[in-house]
């Protein structure tokens, strides 16, 4: 069978087509949309969402879910700002501490899910409350950051033609996508993630270290969410405990639109980046329009998500009927 048009690739292909089509249509409708500047800003503006989505992809590929990522963004944002402003910690160390915290939360959640076979939905729902609570406990007011090194990071960018540029955040996003892709495609860990999503029992009998791999997935998600918080803080130059509220839902939408099945086993990291782009394009187009209020973004995303769900179901049933006909020519 044509692996290029397989169950795995087809959704990604379709998402790319939709993304390009939307970009072109918006380009026709709005002046100055079809520029490199808009294109690259897509990554700069959505870097935090993209980074969170990459981490979440690993969890969803195993058939799990991580609802705590939005709160984690808020928690890491306020933690970082307080560490730098009030505790006078050097920014690199502060970032390290925040990432370690994300790692710890991911580790705890992963351990509970893998060891005691608790439901990911509920464990990470608890994590959602916990992280938001910790964030608000640290500070309810937003905390401005004024630190020369931090400002340098925030304003760093690579100039590109046509007055466009790539920010530090966008570069981080690309780095994370690259690492995520590497882990999922070229490390045995990645194959194990997919195998667990395909059939956990079989994976166990095939000798896949199921628990370790599951914990690894939640750790990655935790670290990515914390990093997403750092990037968000760079973007706003301040820490805020309520930032990232509901972000987990955007991230899930991006991952699903990017072709990953919520059931696990099928999907990819680059797909999730694509999903984030689709969300970003919708948002940018609506901002460009000016007459539409911002909740139109939600409506469009809702419709898109439904469309993709129907599409995935259709692809799946096509694959199923093909399977029934699969010629069993051995020998």
């Amino acid at each position, binding site marked *: *069978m044509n692996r290029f048009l397989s169950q795995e690739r087809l959704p990604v292909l379709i998402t790319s087509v939709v993304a390009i089509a939307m970009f072109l249509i918006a380009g026709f409708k709005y002046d100055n949309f079809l520029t490199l500047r808009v294109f690259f800003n897509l990554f700069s503006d959505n870097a935090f969402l993209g980074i969170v989505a990459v981490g979440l992809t690993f969890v969803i590929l195993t058939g799990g879910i991580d609802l705590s990522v939005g709160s984690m963004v808020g928690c890491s944002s306020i933690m970082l700002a307080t560490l730098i402003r009030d505790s006078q910690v050097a920014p690199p160390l502060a970032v390290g501490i925040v990432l370690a915290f994300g790692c710890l939360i991911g580790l705890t959640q992963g351990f509970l899910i893998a060891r005691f076979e608790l439901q990911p939905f509920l464990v990470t729902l608890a994590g959602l409350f916990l992280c938001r609570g910790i964030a608000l406990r640290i500070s309810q007011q937003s905390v401005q950051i004024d630190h020369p090194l931090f400002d340098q990071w925030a304003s760093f960018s690579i100039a590109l033609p046509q007055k466009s540029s790539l920010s530090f955040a966008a570069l981080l996003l690309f780095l994370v996508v690259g690492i995520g892709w590497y882990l999922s495609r070229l490390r045995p860990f990645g194959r194990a993630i*997919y195998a667990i999503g395909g059939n956990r029992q079989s994976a166990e009998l095939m000798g896949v*270290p199921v628990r370790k791999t599951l914990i690894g997935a939640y750790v990655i998600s935790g670290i990515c969410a914390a990093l997403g918080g750092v990037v968000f803080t760079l973007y706003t130059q301040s820490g805020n405990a309520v930032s990232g509220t509901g972000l987990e839902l955007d991230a899930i939408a991006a991952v699903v639109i990017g072709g990953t099945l919520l059931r696990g086993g099928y999907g990819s990291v680059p797909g999730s980046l694509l999903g984030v782009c689709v969300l970003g394009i919708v948002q940018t187009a609506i901002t460009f329009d000016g007459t539409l209020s911002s909740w139109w973004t939600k409506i469009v995303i809702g419709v898109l998500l439904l469309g993709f769900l129907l599409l995935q179901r259709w692809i799946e049933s096509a694959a199923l*009927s093909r399977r029934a006909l*699969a*010629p069993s*020519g*051995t*020998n």
Partner: protein
Amino acid sequence: MSESTPLLHLQGIDKRFPGVHALKGIDFELETEEIHALLGENGAGKSTLIKVLTGVHAADGGSICIEGRQIAPRNPNEAVTFGISTVYQEVNLAPNLSVAENICLGREPRNVFGIDWRAVGERTKSALNRVGLRVDPQRLVGDISIAEQQLVAIARALDVEAKVLILDEPTSSLDQDEVAQLFATLRRLREEGMGIIFVTHFLDQVYEISDRITVLRNGERIGTFQTDELPRIELVSHMIGRSAESLEHGAMASHEVSGHEPFLTVTNFGKRGSVQDLNFEIRSGEVIGLAGLLGSGRTETARLLFGIDHGTEGGYQLDNRSAHLTPRSAISRGVGLNVEDRKAEGIFPGLSIRENMVVVAQVKRRWWQRISTAEQKQVADEYVSALQLQPPNTDRNIENLSGGNQQKALLGRWLAVEPRLLLLDEPTRGIDIGAKFEIMALVERLRLEGKSFVFISSELSEVIRVSSRIVVLRDRRAVTTISRAEANEEAVVAAIAKHE
């Protein structure tokens, strides 16, 4: 080889599950250069012994020694490092990964950049060659047939350096050529000094390949025998714990068909790309056997008749009216399908045996007419005793039944709604010899009550034994129909193999 220390030595292996004493102090020895058949009825404890030996389950007692060294593997991976490679019962692969990925999963060759996909490809090629499977290594395992999956699982087990190879019913979906190829491989491995444990319910295969036989019954070791010194009839008696002659009692003398008018007729029926040119009719009290090679369209025929797939050509008449069935309407009109792939499409894991057995009965009613627990119990108990399901406790999770007993529970599910036509796709696969005869006798008994069946089996002798007529499929077409009077193995094989 050293006679004193066997390659693998199990002593007093004990295993209890809640409510079941699955292994009662099993001793077992495997020599190098030996193929050792592990036999026993469904639920005897064969798979459990293998799972204890390979670290899936922890033993409650006993010791495992390999080459005189005591080991205690905690998971299948550790077992591999001790030199024990295993193919478990039921295919255990990741359906969402490719053939190549499945073969190398967990032990991917690497280079500086990570997984070396080139090397994966090469290793896959040689692994597939070893079992004689020609399939695109890039195809997803979920997209290939069960037989191919079984071969992939075997190829995976052969991909590591092992001293002990364990195969738990590896041949249940393979056709003759594939079995022959596998056996050639096993013989070669035996010559290379490997010890092989082989579980099967096909006694012919046992006599063809094994050197010794160990029989388990109810978790106890009955004995170990030299294969060539153990007559088949004695072997069966050891397995079932009573004399083997008792099995034949249900043999069919006459074969009168009660119905006169067919209630189901297919004419030139089929689906493009699936199976075509189906022409036959079914009367009440008739068993239609479907014979043909693997991939000849047997399962596809069952799917069409049950309305999972929809015909695109020809006619399908039920009760003299053209019918367009869906599985749901099929059930309400008295047609049932017992599927081939019980693990993926049959059982509801996590539900009890009882719940699994009444699920179709519940579908037949409206959802608000719940079948009370007492009623469920009664129905389930009736078929548990009719099918001699072990253990007879219907509150247990169906996943914990042995493979063959799961199959019996699924049959019970259909029998509980008394369909007038039941499509049986490989109903005897993975079932022990005693239960096979029971199922065939059951088919005959129900047939005499006026029920009809479509009976699909890779074992020709079974098809011939139960069928009123045999429809032969070749290359996804029904090519001929053989009446019961003319049916014998040669005639059917000739029809299957004939070239025009």
